[in-house]
């Protein structure tokens, strides 16, 4: 029985004293950092190399492939094929023989030679591309490369089945790895695990706006987009200035790219300075103007009595904004928009980001060139992009917080860079978004409801890996959040494991949260009814995702340092497959131990006090040592 694939919750493997000193290697806890803050003593290069979903609840059934190797499957998960005698060519451990199991959800490779055995267990959703090597080889070997979205490549070799009619495991794999391309449905639509918490209830737009004090005398909630007629990539509920009518909004929609009109994202509770998001104006080469759009921006400015200015942050480099004029887009001219100041944030487009991540993968996987590590890292520009995004968000947050000025943020379409910038500046400004549920709401709001094109950017179940619409925009956002958690270790309620889990589930296609491109599509697909939310998983085992160092400071604005000197590569995400990258034992571990110790001592103090009280009441009893019966607390402080 391999503990690596069982369905136990990660919480059940709290590092105990036993696990500290046990010399036998436990495989289950070596899913690198995906297991969260696991104690590094259990690290073992031979243990499983997979991010595993650990879902609470009993496995639906057990698949028996050879009498002793049990595969525990998720509900509705069905084994499609088992390839015996498959060789996995591991870049770290060399060629490993074993069996390859393909289900409608996962790929499972189990080595047979080594002890402890190698287990590779990954959702098919992470596979972005399958390349057959050498074509139809005469020797009958099938060799192929799997390129994964989570920064690794896998290579398998196996024999062509003797029976030429029977499909090889390779063919089955290709079919189920790309269900959308093969007219199958994503596994998320099959999966019907019931969790104690319902994640679909986490975000209620009206409740979130109410939390911000909306609607109020300056802002109203418009129903103009109730049926997604104004803008098909926007949510139904939109917050706009009270002085602007729905008709005017319709005219603004005609002027803004994809109808993505300026709407409120966040309102400062004291200064009433607003963070507003939209897409680029369709001013074009001729510098077209729209009187309603100008009025709308003026109204946004007027809604904030503290400032007679408004800042428009265009996320793009100014060259790109100018180039967009050729295609009918462009940026606001300061002539047309009085009292507005236009600032370019120089963040590059999705293609540059995709290329940067590709280079990063080259640098970190599988091997790291030691002596040129830093210059290689620099040449990917990945951290440079992170810096620019964080710097942009910092400027936005600063204008809102210190300048008490409202800001309008847009890029070209307002669903990539804009989402990154607004959500990051909101995290800086509003401590609620640094809690576990607040962060969930933020993602639901700024990313999912405002139409970040998850389906396109990730390419769920689609075999067209060269699709130029794919780009790691959400990953980049999570990386920026991680950078902030590193700089402010006590300011976030969630931990690193939470962020890694989100990224793993982004690709897994197990949950409905990150499917589709817009709220309209989600409603049409009935995702709430037909799929499970990733927040159901998270909120049902919250203790795994909580940062024990968290301190809640209600009105604390975070101003991170955006200097590249403070930015680090997120090793425990990008390089987690490399067994040489042993994660540090997290501080959290020691902190948790101390917390447990404190709780234990507190309990004992209380016990004693109770005992003392009891004894006082029954004074006839002789005062014996109350501690004899209690085992002494082992201390280590």
């Amino acid at each position, binding site marked *: 029985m391999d503990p690596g694939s069982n369905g136990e919750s990660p919480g059940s493997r709290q590092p105990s004293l036993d696990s*500290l*000193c046990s*010399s036998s290697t436990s495989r289950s806890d070596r899913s690198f950092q995906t297991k969260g803050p696991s104690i*590094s003593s259990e690290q073992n*290069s031979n243990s499983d190399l997979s991010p595993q979903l650990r879902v609470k609840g009993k496995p639906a059934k057990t698949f028996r492939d050879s009498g002793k190797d049990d595969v525990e499957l998720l509900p509705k998960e069905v084994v499609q094929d088992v390839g015996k005698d498959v060789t996995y060519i591991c870049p770290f451990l060399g060629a490993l023989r074993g069996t390859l199991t393909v289900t409608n959800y996962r790929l499972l490779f189990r080595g047979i030679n080594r002890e402890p055995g190698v287990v590779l267990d990954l959702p098919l959703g992470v596979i972005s591309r399958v390349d057959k090597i050498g074509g139809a080889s005469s020797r009958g070997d099938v060799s192929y490369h799997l390129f994964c979205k989570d920064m690794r490549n896998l290579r398998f070799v196996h024999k062509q089945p003797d029976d030429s009619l029977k499909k090889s495991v390779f063919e089955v794999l290709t079919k189920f790895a790309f269900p959308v391309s093969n007219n199958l*449905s*994503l596994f998320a639509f099959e999966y019907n695990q019931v969790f104690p918490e319902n994640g679909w209830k986490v975000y209620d737009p009206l409740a979130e706006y109410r939390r911000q004090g909306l609607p109020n005398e300056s802002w109203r909630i418009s129903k103009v987009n109730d049926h997604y007629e104004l803008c098909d990539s926007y949510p139904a509920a939109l917050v706009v200035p009270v002085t602007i009518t729905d008709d005017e909004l319709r005219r603004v929609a005609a002027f803004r790219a994809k109808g993505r009109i300026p709407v409120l994202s966040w309102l400062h509770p004291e200064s009433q300075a607003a963070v507003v998001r939209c897409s680029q104006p369709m001013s074009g080469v001729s510098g077209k103007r729209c009187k309603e759009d100008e009025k709308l921006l003026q109204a946004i400015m007027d809604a904030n009595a503290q400032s007679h200015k408004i800042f428009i942050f265009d996320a793009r480099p100014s*060259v*790109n904004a100018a180039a967009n004029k050729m295609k009918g887009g462009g940026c606001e001219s300061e002539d047309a928009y009085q009292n507005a100041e236009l600032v370019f944030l*120089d963040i*590059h*487009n999705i293609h540059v980001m995709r290329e940067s991540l590709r280079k990063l993968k080259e640098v970190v996987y599988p091997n790291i060139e*030691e*002596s040129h*590590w*830093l*210059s*290689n890292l*620099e040449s990917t*520009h990945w951290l*440079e992009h992170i810096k*620019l995004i964080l710097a942009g968000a910092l*400027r936005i947050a600063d204008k809102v917080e210190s300048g008490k000025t409202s800001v309008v943020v847009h*890029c*070209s*379409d307002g669903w990539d860079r804009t989402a990154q910038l607004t959500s990051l500046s909101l995290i800086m400004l509003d401590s609620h978004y640094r809690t576990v549920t607040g962060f969930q709401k933020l993602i639901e709001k700024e990313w999912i409801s405002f139409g970040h094109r998850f389906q396109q950017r990730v390419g769920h179940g689609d075999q067209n890996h060269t*699709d130029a*619409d794919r780009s790691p925009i959400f990953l980049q956002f999570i990386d920026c959040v991680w950078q902030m958690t590193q*700089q402010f*270790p006590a*300011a976030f309620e969630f931990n690193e494991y939470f962020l890694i889990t989100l990224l793993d589930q982004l690709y897994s296609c197990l949950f409905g949260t990150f499917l589709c*491109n817009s709220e309209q599509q989600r409603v049409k697909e009935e995702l709430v009814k037909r799929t499970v939310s990733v927040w159901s998983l998270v909120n049902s085992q919250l203790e795994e995702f909580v940062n024990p160092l968290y301190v809640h400071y209600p009105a*604390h604005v975070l*101003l*991170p*340092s*955006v*200097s*590249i*000197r*403070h930015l*680090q590569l997120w090793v425990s995400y990008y390089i987690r497959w490399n067994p*040489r*990258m042993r994660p*540090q*034992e997290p*501080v959290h571990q*020691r902190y948790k131990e*101390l917390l447990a110790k*404190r709780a234990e*001592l*507190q309990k*004992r*103090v209380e016990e004693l006090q109770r005992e003392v009280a009891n004894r006082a009441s029954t004074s006839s009893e002789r005062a014996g*040592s109350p*501690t004899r019966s209690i085992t002494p607390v*082992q*201390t*280590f*402080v």
Partner: protein
Amino acid sequence: MLSLGGGGAKSSKPSFVSYITPEEIKSEKEPPKKERHPNLLPGEVVFCSADPILKHTQDDVSQRGIFGTLLCTNFRVSFVSDETPLEETGSNLGDLISLQMLFCFVVYDEKRKMITGGMLKNKYPSKMIIHCKDLRVFQFCLTFTKEEDARKIFHGIAHHCLEPKSLKCVFAFSYAVSRSPEMQRSQRTVMFDSKEDWAQEMKRTKGNCRIVTENEGFKLSTRLPKYFIIPSSVTDEDLFKFQGKGLPIWCWSHHSGCALFKASTLPVPQEDGVIQRYMERMLDAAAQTHLYSLKIEDLSETLPTVQDIQQSYAKFKQFFLIDNSTDFWVSDVKWFSSVENTGWMDIIRKCLQKAVEVVECLEKENTNILIMEEEGTDLCCVISSLVQIMLDPHYRTLTGFQGLVQKEWVAGCHAFLDRCNHLCQKDKESPSPIFLLFLECVWQLVQQHSPAFQFSETYLTVLSDSVHVPVFSTFLFNSAYQRESTLKAESQHPQRGPLNCPAVWDWSVQFDCKAQELFLNPLYADKLKQDKVLRKVPRPKHQRQLSLPSSAFKTPPKKGFFKDETESLKKMLRVKRISRWMASPDSPAANTREFYEAWQRRPLDHHGLLLPWLDGPAVRLWMQRYLRWIPEVQILGGGPVAVTNKMAELLVQVQELRKKLDLKGCWQPEAERVQLQPRPLALARNSLRLSSAFPFASSRNWTFKPVIPTSLLQSLMLTDKLASQEDETTEVISLV
């Protein structure tokens, strides 16, 4: 007592002012006096002063400065602000500029000129920029003061800080003469200046070598410690043959019985073969210590030279001496490659790698090892100390570590005076930050294996600064001989013994108790717990200890093997100067990989063997030391201090609860006493007010303003096609 910092007022207690909250500073201040001068130390004399001087404050966005008096004493350059204490920015360590400056820049009419001594112009300088060895940068505007004063103070500073001087003029001597002797505190650090200390150390590690007492009067060699340990079979005749050169000096014994030795190299052998035969006897003697095995590592063959290290660090440190915000953001763009090009990180990696190889030899092969180098007091010290830290948990405690520095570096005759260039000599050959390199390597271990170390990174940073505080005898001399003879000569009352100069380990000279608590790592996993754990499940390592050393089985099991091998190698030695004896054919990295993997498979034991991770991302920049003074990188309310604070707070709570239980009499005090660490204090309850530079730069005067890059535009000018591509290439109607 020596109060480092604290401008303008007398204070009765020692203070490291950056640790003190503003309230405390206020209460310490007395009404401004007419004549402003810092609280002078015993023996400190003001050479010259000038006012008003405008000190530019880097941390101020408005570029405004503070007026005050600039003084130059025989100990420091000090700036005392005219302003009320409340607004005073200079009240942290910033007030004190120890005389150990790197360079002094002078601006004449906007042109910057570097002053390294001996090149003073008689022109009226308008601005003075001082770069300190702890990487602080100060800018003083001299235009408000009288021309004569400005020239005087500038010349005074340049002369006292940058001109060569004699050892006698070092402030430590006038300080030691003037200070009251009762300030000496009892020290728990083993100083390794007595025979007993060495005997105790050998007993602790179960070494089987012999202590040499023949060098008590430094008759044998002035480059060797008073007492040292060599293999038992070295004859007295050989001992004196080459003034101790080539002697295998014992450093440490592994529990298997094999030992680590270090030696200086002898000159190239002459024709007669006397030296060869002497060396053979030395190697034989070292090999006999355990199983007749020995491996020789000539560090000068594989590690960078002392000059390489100096050059690399000279380039490296430039990136942290930042004068203004524009420079900062410009250098941010190519930051990683700039750091890499200095080679400093690579030198750190190489040293750690070499130490791992030596550790492998001792731990896995149970072979004696002799590390060699020209003098045997530079990289030998680095490698031998690192090896001991990785293998011996005793050296990961605070006092253990201090003992190690005493043993390998201070008693071990590392030429601190020359390497740190305390006397500002113009000699280009000798200065080199070897000790700093060692601290850098230790820091890498500390950040990778935090729970294994009792001391914190703040301790290491403070120690690296203290090297340049000319008050302590610890880092002032080139050898034990020089220390003893100088202190004797400088003594005012020769009959009462040598001058009593404090050791740096007497931390109360610099810091109060509260500040010293920052030296302790709240994450340190105490030994006791581990013991209990280990007793339950014996680990493989311990099992091996019970049986024969594994090496006895590994290589051909013939008993005479090592002997044979040695014979043949001796022949080789006659041809070539001592090279590596049992050099392995494989590349070192591939070789140690297996060792790493075996270690990795074992459960992590903070009190067992520690190996550093050396892959690219694992070797990191010592942020605290290098970035602490740069305002652009301070994270207000963040940084590691946020964690340390929380940990410390919780520790206090746990200890309080335990005390409560203790009072109720249900505790087993005798079992508990042992493990009570000095109690870490919750420093500042509100960590929001602290910045990531804590405890070094105080953040209270920094405006709560984000630092926004000024050079965003030039940072990423991508010219490729992708950058100009449309975001949406195709409209894909998608999904399911």
